[in-house]
């Protein structure tokens, strides 16, 4: 019956990990949203501060390859 117990334990462990993963996923989602908000806030602050500067950092966020600032959605 050792194998049976081992299997039951594995099964329990799997269920526990699944639960944990779900929790982490939700946390990642929340953090992601928070980061988005922070990022846009930061963008705003930076663009205000850049009005008088020569070099403009590329705040283009919609495409990695396109150097021109498009309309960001």
């Amino acid at each position, binding site marked *: 019956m050792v*194998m049976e117990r081992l*299997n039951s334990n*594995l099964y329990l462990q799997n269920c526990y990990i*699944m639960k944990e993963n779900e929790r982490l996923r939700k946390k990642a989602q929340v953090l992601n949203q928070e*980061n988005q908000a922070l990022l846009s806030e*930061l963008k705003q602050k930076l663009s205000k501060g850049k009005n008088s500067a020569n070099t403009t950092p590329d705040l283009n966020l919609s*495409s990695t390859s396109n150097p021109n600032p498009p309309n960001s959605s």
Partner: protein
Amino acid sequence: MWGKMAFSMHKEPLNSKQIDSSKYVRYTPEQVEALERVYNECPKPSSLRRQHLIRECPILSNIEPKQIKVWFQNRRCREKQRNEASRLQTVNRKLTAMNKLLMEENDRLQKQVSHLVYENGYMKQQLRTASATTTDNNSCESVVVSGQQQQQQNPTPRHPQSDANNPAGLHIIAEETLAEFLSKATGTAVDWDQIIGMKPGPDSIGIVAVSRNCSGIAARACGLVSLKPTMIAEILKDRPSWFRDCRCVDVLSIIPTANGGTIELIYMQTYAPTTLAAARDFWTLRYTTSLEDGSLVVCERSLTSTGGPTGPPTSCFVRAEMLPSGFLIRPCEGGGSIIHIVDHVDLDVWSVPEVLRPLYESSKILAQKMTIAALLHIRQISQETNGEIKYGGGRQPAVLRTFSQRLCRGFNDAVNGFVDDGWSLMGSDGVEDMTIMINSSPGKFIGSQYNASMFSSFGGGVLCAKASMLLQNVPPALLVRFLREHRSEWADYGVDTYSAACLKPNPCAVPYARTSGFPSSQVILPLAQTVEHEEFLEVVRLEGHAFTPDDVALTQDMYLLQVSVVMCEVVLISTLLELGQFDCPYVLDTVGACAQLIFAPIDESFADNAPLLPSGFRVIPLDPKTVMDGPGATRTLDLASALEVGPGINRLSSDGEPNNYNLRSVLTIAFHFTFENHLRDDVVSMARQYVRSVVGSVQRVAMAIAPSRVSSGLETKPLPGYPEALPGSPEALTLVHWICRSYRIHTGDELLGADSQAGDALLKQLWHHTDAIMCCSLKSNASPVFTFANQAGLDMLETTLVALQDIMLDKIVDEAGRKILCLEFMEQGFGHLPAGICVSSMGRRVSYEQAIAWKVVDEDATTHCLALIFINWSFV
């Protein structure tokens, strides 16, 4: 370890026989060899056979008959133990694989979360310093760069303004598709509810999740497969081989990409599952590439009008949309791979009749048909490649698989009846219950598979009679299983004879088609089954039992090739986890599995390219969630939500027991017939009559086998010989309620003590109760077998949930005990045993303080089973 255990089990170890009369018996190697040989032919020889054996075989002649008997008994027991051990090994392997997958995901998620936390902190810090007059450019950029990654994980897909009518544009679309697909595969882009493929016990195929609250429907799966990534990619890219609903896939152009990948433009047609809505097609871009970490990715997305070349025009198809989907394959050490599959589609729900909408909005059905099907297929190939599968009927599994693919395809062709296959509609006879379609050039769609020369002299064709209808309160799997096992309840031997005769090359031999009404029996000869047992391919031999001499001339043995497919029943794991029930393996909520049964007459020779004209049944459950709560509902109507939701939708009855929510499903029937032109109208009317009678039979069967606790005015006739309770039906929780309530009725006491809980907590309480509680079936003509047990019961019987049904009550409780139990039980429906001894399934003695047996009744006071409790039990 097993050898030792086996040794200790038996009072008379088999491996020693001494010439003096010690109580141990030892056989010489020659004797053992001889005995094993007999065992392999006949594991359970009768006493006559055993005597014969002693006489015939000189090596065994000096062994007492009783010893021979004991040897065989012990040998059978050893066999059973070995099988059990290997089964446990398999389960262990699967669990370990799952465990590995889960740990990997866990690891990845932790990294992701800590990365996000770091960024979060960094940005907050930046915000504080950004209000200062000077800002460091570099740090801004790094923030921006990582911000881009964050944005690309944003769940809303965007269609870019960029020009997609040139290869560069296609590349951009391809890269975006890749990014969006990856974010779904790794689980952050869509809201997912996890599902796990599970039968009673910890078997599982991998982690599957379905979408909630996103546009369209999505399903995702993750599994471990022992194949190389490139091979997996090759298998999965060949969609028609595993996606049974796929009619055709045309790769219209291939464009190579810089890193050795490809971009393909693909047009795919899929079959409609019922006769009530049109089929869907897709026009997609598929991008194959490798990532820096060595993973292989194949992702795909529909090209919409805003970006990309326009696809082929569609006539009888509705254009559906595939949102970024695909599969990600990562090699792992040991030669296997971890695969993540995402399927995300929008099937244009609003162009479908309202009653069918749940089917087109169901992520779970999508999961069954595509995601799980893909995973099961590569698992199957992997096991075949690794030599773990026995060949059936002397044929390679691939050949058998072709049979089942052709059967499914032929059935789909019948249900859909595409004009470009040569089908045309025949007028109805006034009653709109079914559709008849005629095909005068069947060679077109069946092609080389069909012996078109059959009708060359007389002219003829193929006819299809089909219909779709709603069924209530019968799980698809149950219905299909019944139809498969009890063909005589719905089929007509005369019609089957006609279909079989049409296969013969000589048209003159085709008898006039008529329904015969005389009985027949079937013998099922299994050919093959898939690893996870969701598909069974078999040959059915039909024998007619004629009574009149005239009819006898008509009877003949005929053969059908038949496949039954029942997708594994899945459970909503989030329910289990939230209720803290993960330490109790009984499932609380099962989602209906799609099921189909398809058969075709086949010639005795079973040639690999034998022509097949399939007919059959398909039953698909309509997800009750959308029916009840409307689109966009966030929870399945499982026990948890039923408890939360208000009284309008809450179906709980007053004493806390759940009713079966109204499970509806769509049944589609299609039957193929051949005809010669001069007999066409007769065959048409026979087909109409036959399909009507089949529909009637199926409805009668559905009512009879529905595990109904819904009171209806209709009489439900229980069909003889058909088991009332399958594992998982009725639901364990309901059974537990019945057990406790029946106990209360008989004794006035609470089975589980004064603080008995209500609802689902009761199931958990019973499961963990220290006394052994079990249920046995009550069959009049057979010895009762165990159908249910709590943990203590399983421990006492020394068995597992899956093996429980192999154990008979006779084995456990001795003769005397059974007599007492039966006497009292017969009179009062209740029996009581004082302290005594019983025996586990392994032969170990168990003592108990007292044992009680009582009749378990359901809401309608119908006897369901026998329950037993062994109080204060322990091994002797």
